[in-house]
Structures are given as C-alpha cells and as structure tokens.
C-alpha cells in the first residue's frame, strides 16, 4: 500500500434503470462510505454522461481524491472512458478501478434485489481493495524507424515490398537465392485464368529492381534480429556470387564459354545449367553467380568477361555482413514442395515415369527444358495416358496431416493444359476430395470435366512399375463404384504437398516467433490477427504462415504491408504499461520465466538477473505466476492487488461464495455475455479479472480457501484460443495438480473448477455457476467450514513454501 494518505472516491451508477431496477444504488453508495480510504461515495443516474464525468472531475479537485472507483457496467465497456475522465481530473489513469455491477449483477440477478445489492456492495469493496494498492503507470513510447525488412522475394514478399515502398517507406528485401521470383517464377500458367506466370510476375520483379525505395539484397540471409517493434536491429549475411553485381551486365558471354554443366535447380533438374549461371532468363537482378562446388577454375569466364570490356568476375569475393535498422519486419519465406521419395508407395525415385507436379510444370512450359513437350523420362516419348494423383504427402498422418489447399487447383490446371495441348491424351485425375472454393475455381473444375478429363475418386495404395513397358499400374479403389481397379497409365504425376520452407525453424528462432504444429509460422490470432506474429512489429505474408495460392498470398502481402505501415506512420509507438518487471534483488537467475514467456520478452544473460524488454511484453502475467522466487510483478495486476480482492470478496459468509478468476479476453467476456443475454443464476460468484488464466498463482487458490471460500473457479480461453498463445496451457499445468493437493489437504476437489469458455459462451457460464452453487448447497456450509478448518495448517504451510 502506498504511504500517501488514501483518498478514494466511489461512484455508483444507476445506468437508468438497468442497474437501479435491481440494485439499491443509494444503499451501495452509503455502505461504501465505511470502506477504508473512501472519502466520498455517491450514486448517480448515468456516470458515463457528461454531468457524471464532471462530478468525478469536480470531486477529485474538491476532495483531493487520489483513487477513483466507478461501479457501473463492464470494464470492457467503459474503462477507457473513465480512465480518460480521471486523467482529465488530474490523476493518473491507472489509479482508477471499476466494479461491474451491471453485466455481472443486475442483469443476471433479476428478482433477487436484496442479494443483488449485497453482491454489488462486495463488488465495490473488491474494487476499493484493489484501488488501495494501485500505482500510477506511464504509457511507454518508443521511437519508430520508418524502414521495413521483407524476408523472402517470392510473389508475397515482392508485393509487400512494393506496397510499402510506394507508401514512401524504405524497404530492404532480402532473398536467399540469387534471384527474386520464388516458386511463381517457375510456374507455366496460373489458375483459374491460365495467364502466363512469369508474364504477370516479371514486370513486378522489374519494378522491385527499379524502385528507389527498395534495397534488394539477394543471395542473402537474415542471421540475427535484435530489438523490438519500431526498433529492430538486423544482421544480413550475403554470400559471395564471385561476380561483381555493379560490373556484371548480364550479357551471358561467361556462361556460353563455361565448359561445366550441372542440373538446373530451377528446371527441377530436368535441364542443365552452367557453373556460372543465372537462375532463369528473367532473373532479377540479372547478374551471374558462380557455383564454386561445380566450377573447375578454368577461368574461361574471366577471359570472356574481359573481352566484353568488363572485369566482373572476382574469385576472391568474401561473404559480407550488413547491419540494418528497421521498424517492422515481414516474413514471406514461402513454402517447399514435399519430396515424394519419403513415401515409397508412390514409386517416385524408383520408377522413372513417376514425376512431380513441378516437373510437369517445367515440361509443359514452352521455354522449359523440353520446350513444351511432355515426355516420359524413360524413353523421351509423349505418353498417351497420364494419371495425376492428388494429396501426395497431404492429409496423411505419416506425412502432413493438413490439406495443402492449392494442389487440387494446380492439378486441374496441369491436366487442363495437357488436354489443351494434346487433345488425344487420356487423362485421369485420381483424387480424394476436390477442393475448389474460390472465385472461378469450381467453374475451372467443371471446365476440366467438360474437356473429358476423367476423375476417379480414390487414392493408390501402391503404384507399380512395369519394367518392360515403363508403364505404371495404380492399384486403387474407385470409390464411386466401390470396385478395386488397376489403372494402367504411361505417366504418373504426383501433386506434392506444400511444406514449410527450409530454414523456417532457424528463422523462427532468430526472430523469436513461434511456428505451429505443422511447422509454418504461427499467427497471433487465427481470426483477428492472421498476418501478425505474436511479437509486435513482425508480420507474415504468403505461404510462410501456411499454404496459400497466388491471389491469397498477394492479398495477405498487401495486408501485411498495411499492418507495417500502421506502425511506421507514427514517429513513436505507444506501449501498454500493463507489463511485467523483474526485481533483480529477488531473481535467482533460474531462467524459468524465459521458458514461459511466449514472446521471448524475457532474457537472461549468464550470471545476470532476468530482464523484461517492455516493448516485447504483452502483459499476460504467466511468468509472474511461475516465478519460483516471486521476483516478477505484473503492473496493475500485482499479487497484493489480487490478494486484497480475494479477501474483500470473501469478507462475509465466505462458505457460500465462489471466488472466480476470469481471463479478460474469453471467460470475462463470456460472463459479460451471460448478463447481456439476461441468463439468470444465483448471486454467489465473486469475480476477479486477470489478463490471462496464466496469471493465476496457486497461492490465490490457497488464500481463497484459507479465507473460507466455498468454491474457487479458474477460467480462461479454450486451448488454441489463448490471447497470449500458451497462457492457458501454463494455467492448466499449474492448476491441475491442485485437485490432488486439495484432496490431500482435506478439501473436496470438486470445490475447485478449472473451466475454459469463450466470449460466446454466456449460457455455459450461467450453467456452471448454477452447478457450483448446487454443490455448495449439497455439501452444506458446515461441511465446507469443517473442510477449510482441517486444511488450514496444510494450506498455510504451502503458502509459506510459496506454492
């Protein structure tokens, strides 16, 4: 408690008749006068109205108030309003607390005005108890560097970079390979319009190269990222091309004299390239690179270059490290294609005439290694029958459990292209489900059927090769007829799954952002922040976050650019002060907090106490609850504040009370909804709002039972919905063992409830409240008192031990 004299003002709102029809507001205001520290207590029709707010401001001046409590609606509704009001009145906005006597009381307790009024008094007492421990907090402001880093130069990265550059921001576009363009540059046509892929991407690539605001860094990788939103310090490592980018003009004389040929990665190894090469003719930058693993150092290229009057080739080139400062980062590292060798049943790598979708993509391209001819690798002959097999590596628990999303469409596209080029070709698509759910996609599927492509629902259990003919036999069930069939074709094309691109894990560690169970980058919220990393200032575009087709990638790329610009358009970025800080005196340097923080906001240097980076902390409080030495405090939700709320909530006949901890985002909102929906249930629950269920310490539960509580409820979001990614998992891990511990102490474990419910589950909250009250009645207050009494020494021992 602060040493200054506490001068608290309490204001009880009628909300017209919303509250006053059930709760006797004057009686609540009168009762609150006797609470310690309260110097003025009033009730009024509408506290949020101008006269209501004026009353508070006037009282702050007149009564020299240093804390304000408003008992009205949910803080999720008007907390910001009253914070502004008290700030205007001259006190720090964080010296304000709200008691929710509308959603949590009058709206859900019709017909029991006396009990509702008693509950309102308790809710005000709890708010006043917390207010006594409030400290002034300052909103942090950090400067913002108006430059952005985009990692990955595929179609998504290109669009994010161009959007940001067009908005006037400096952009560093870092690409790992020697040219931007990504997967799209290697595609022949795009679905469902069949426009030429490089024809639509090429101009965008050129735009990147020519844009005055974009600094293109190819053949480069991000190796280190430090800092936080607005202030990232990034190290970029550039590998040597052995060709000076400034001097090379892309004439290609070097490659024409190079005697070494190696398989061309861009052509899926179906064609050759030289040891000195560009990835493809439209490469940006159009600068040559020497593959030193293949090069025999004959130096013919050096001579050829000099004959052109240049001296671009430099065998002594060294790797470079460049350090840049940016305000935001967009990760657009794309995807890789699954290697079907990993599943033997498809025969890829065993039978030459089993090829991948990407191989067909290059073959069917007129500029590709076969000049548009589709041939069987075994005899270079055009096949008369072709079978496409979908879901290769997708929807398979042995490979990837997820659906890769765009394979159905690219399979249709390739089949349509083949049928279009070679109408006589007999084409089968062996599929499981045909997923064609975007604009123009289903129409494209219909078009494929109309062209006479044959669709067989099923999946080969195995593909056998006939060594004589080179043909393949697909053993499968035709699910439409229920018959097993052996489908013999001359060429099989496998539609590979999309998997996280190589290096995703390493990059996620460099950025301290999470990946999901499939290995793609994890978004902050699946619905409302699908482009944001959990770390502020880092965004995702394209398939890095999960498989996406081109239009979806481009849409997300522009969205990520707008998220970035939202930050960079400010000179300074405000950071909420409800964050954690570590007391270096108490910290024992165990490092537990660093493993609990889902944002990588806590770091610990060898031999030093842990440190929270304020700009990275989101204020869930999980580290606070898990710190074994009680060295961490969450501002505005301190242990002392919460303990005071517990004690105030249980000040009278505690055996009949349920002490409930509700997370701000799901369960508090769900409980609000119960009131909004006018679900009716008994008044026994005394709620305490925490930002996350991960904040709930075991000591809070012990304290509640020591103070005589009938029941305790800890509640949070459903798993995978946590606002702080993993807070509720940590809550479960910490609270679950309590059932056993309480039983050992002599407390019926049913008197503790661990509940997960969403903001939409008001009805559920009402139901469990009724259940808990029924249990209290079933056990009886005498039994509860006896259990609590019996458990007291054990719980006190646990409290002394610190949980």
């Amino acid at each position, binding site marked *: 408690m602060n040493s200054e004299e506490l001068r608290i003002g309490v204001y009880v709102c009628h909300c017209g008749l919303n509250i006053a029809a059930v709760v006797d507001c004057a009686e609540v205001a009168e009762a609150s006068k006797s609470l310690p520290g309260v110097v003025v207590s009033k009730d009024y029709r509408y506290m949020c109205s101008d006269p209501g707010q004026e009353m508070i401001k006037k009282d702050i001046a007149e009564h020299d108030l240093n804390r304000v409590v408003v008992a009205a609606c949910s803080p999720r509704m008007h907390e910001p309003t009253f914070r502004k009001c008290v700030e205007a009145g001259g006190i720090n906005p964080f010296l304000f607390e709200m008691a929710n006597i509308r959603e949590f009381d009058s709206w859900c307790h019709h017909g029991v005005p006396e009990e509702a009024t008693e509950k309102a008094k308790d809710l005000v007492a709890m708010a006043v108890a917390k207010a006594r421990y409030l400290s002034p907090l300052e909103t942090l402001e950090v400067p913002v560097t108006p430059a952005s880093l985009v990692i990955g130069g595929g179609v998504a990265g290109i669009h994010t970079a161009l959007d940001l550059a067009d908005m006037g921001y400096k952009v560093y576009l870092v690409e790992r390979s020697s040219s931007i363009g990504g997967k799209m540059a290697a595609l022949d046509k795009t679905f469902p319009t069949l426009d030429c892929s490089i024809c639509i991407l090429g101009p965008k690539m050129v735009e990147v190269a020519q844009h005055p605001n974009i600094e293109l860094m190819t053949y480069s990788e991000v190796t280190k990222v430090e800092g936080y939103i607005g202030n990232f310090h990034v190290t970029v490592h550039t590998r040597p091309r052995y060709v000076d980018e400034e001097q090379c003009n892309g004439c290609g004389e070097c490659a024409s004299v190079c005697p070494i040929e190696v398989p061309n990665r861009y052509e899926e190894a179906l064609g050759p390239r030289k040891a000195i090469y560009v990835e493809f003719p439209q490469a940006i930058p159009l600068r040559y690179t020497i593959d030193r693993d293949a090069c025999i150092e004959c130096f013919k290229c050096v001579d050829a270059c000099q004959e052109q009057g240049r001296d671009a080739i430099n065998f002594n080139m060294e790797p470079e490290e460049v350090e840049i400062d940016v305000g935001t980062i967009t990760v657009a590292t794309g995807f890789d294609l699954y290697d079907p060798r990993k599943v033997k049943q498809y025969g890829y790598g065993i039978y030459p005439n089993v090829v991948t979708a990407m191989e067909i993509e290059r073959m069917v391209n007129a500029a590709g290694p076969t000049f548009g001819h589709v041939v069987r690798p075994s005899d270079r002959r055009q096949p008369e029958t072709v079978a496409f097999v979908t879901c290769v590596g997708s929807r398979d628990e042995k490979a990837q459990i997820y659906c890769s999303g765009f394979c159905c469409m690219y399979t249709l596209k390739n089949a349509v292209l083949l049928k279009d080029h070679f109408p006589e070709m007999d084409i089968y698509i062996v599929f499981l489900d*045909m997923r064609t759910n975007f604009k123009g996609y289903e129409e494209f599927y*219909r078009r494929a*059927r*109309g*062209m*006479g492509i*044959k*669709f*067989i*629902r099923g999946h080969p259990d195995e593909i056998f090769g006939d060594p004589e003919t080179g043909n393949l036999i697909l053993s499968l069930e*035709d699910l*439409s*007829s229920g018959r097993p069939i052996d489908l013999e074709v001359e060429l099989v094309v496998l539609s590979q799954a999309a998997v996280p691109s190589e290096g995703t894990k390493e990059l996620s560690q460099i950025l301290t952002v999470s990946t999901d169970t499939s290995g793609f980058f994890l978004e902050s919220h699946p619905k409302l922040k699908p482009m944001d990393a959990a770390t502020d200032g880092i965004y995702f575009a394209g398939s890095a976050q999960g498989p996406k087709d081109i239009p979806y990638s481009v849409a997300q790329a522009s969205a990520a650019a707008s998220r970035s610009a939202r930050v960079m358009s400010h000179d300074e970025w405000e950071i909420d002060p409800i964050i954690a800080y570590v007391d270096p005196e108490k910290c024992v340097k165990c490092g537990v907090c660093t493993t609990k923080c889902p944002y990588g906001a806590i770091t610990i240097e060898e031999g030093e106490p842990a440190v929270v980076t304020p700009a990275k902390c989101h204020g869930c409080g999980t580290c606070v609850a898990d710190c074994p030495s009680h060295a961490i405090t969450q501002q505005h939700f301190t242990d002392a504040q919460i303990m005071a709320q517990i004690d105030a909530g249980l000040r009278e006949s505690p055996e009949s009370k349920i002490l409930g901890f509700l997370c701000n985002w799901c369960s508090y909102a769900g409980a609000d909804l119960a009131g909004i929906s006018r679900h009716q249930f008994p008044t026994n629950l005394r709620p305490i709002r925490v930002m996350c269920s991960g904040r709930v310490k075991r000591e809070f539960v012990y304290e509640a039972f020591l103070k005589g509580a009938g029941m305790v409820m800890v509640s949070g979001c459903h798993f995978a919905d946590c606002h702080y990614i993993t807070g509720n998992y940590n809550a479960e891990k910490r609270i679950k063992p309590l059932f056993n511990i309480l039983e050992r102490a002599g407390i019926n474990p049913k008197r503790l409830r661990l509940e997960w419910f969403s903001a939409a589950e008001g009805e559920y909250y009402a139901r469990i409240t009724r259940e808990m009250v029924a249990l209290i009645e079933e056990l009886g207050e005498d039994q509860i008192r006896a259990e609590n009494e019996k458990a007291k020494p054990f719980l006190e021992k646990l409290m002394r031990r610190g949980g």
Partner: protein
Amino acid sequence: MEIPQGAKDEIMERARYCFGCGVCMGGCPVARVNEGFNPRLLVRELILENWEEVLTGDAIWLCSQCHLCTENCPQGVGLSELIVKLRNLATSLGITPPKSYTDKIKLMARTGRLALLTAPTARARRSLGLTEMEEAEVKEIRKLAKGTGFETFLADLEG
C-alpha cells in the same frame, strides 16, 4: 464393337460434367424396386468409356423415363434424354433389348397398350363407376411405326 465417334461425343457432351453426387440415384423410383439399377453408375461407366458394357447391359432399358433425375441434376447431365440416346444407339448397333422390354413393344404393336386390359381390370373400373376402356387405335400406331422406321425393328423382333 464399333461405335461411331459422333454418337459417343453426342452422348458424352453433357455426361462429362457428372461429379457423382448421386442425386439421380437418390430419387430414382426404379432403383427403389430394382437393386440392380443405379443411374449414377451408368454415367460413371460412360466416363470410364466402358461402352460395350453399358450398351449390352440391362440398365438402359430399366429406366421408366420419369425425368426426376433430369430435373434434379446439379450439373445438367440430362440423364433421361441420355438414356434414350443410349437405347437408340444400342438398337442401331443391332443390340436387342431384354425380353421383358421387347414383350412390351410387341404388346404395344398388337394392342396399342403397354398393359393388357384384363377382365379383373374391367370389373374394377366398373365398380369405381369408370367408363369402359375403348380399344386403342392399333392402325394409327402401325402408321407411326412405319413413318419412324420402328417398323423394321418390330419386324426383326417378330422374326
């Protein structure tokens, strides 16, 4: 069996769009009483180009031409018309329909009806106060058969 490509193309023009939802089978009144009849599989066989099986099998002759499938098909396959085309194609290739079907044809040629007017039927009509059934105009039917070329087919049947 040599099937003209033009005939195949005409039949497949709309059949190709079938995606196997089974609406045709779900509503088919024949399928309810004849387990061997599945209109969805009939189209399936065509897509897989099993022409001979379709044309020589019984299925195309079992359809009652109620047109429910044609009405309900989400892809506009037009199964009822397609079956008529298949019957015509089969006949033109010299395939004889099953006996149950040819017996009906013969009956129609002879009496002008697909079902015989029996004494019990006549009694039932009388008891319901319905008028006596008149004889069909067999002559007219013969005339039609001649005009459409159906006569030759009948002659073959009647051997």
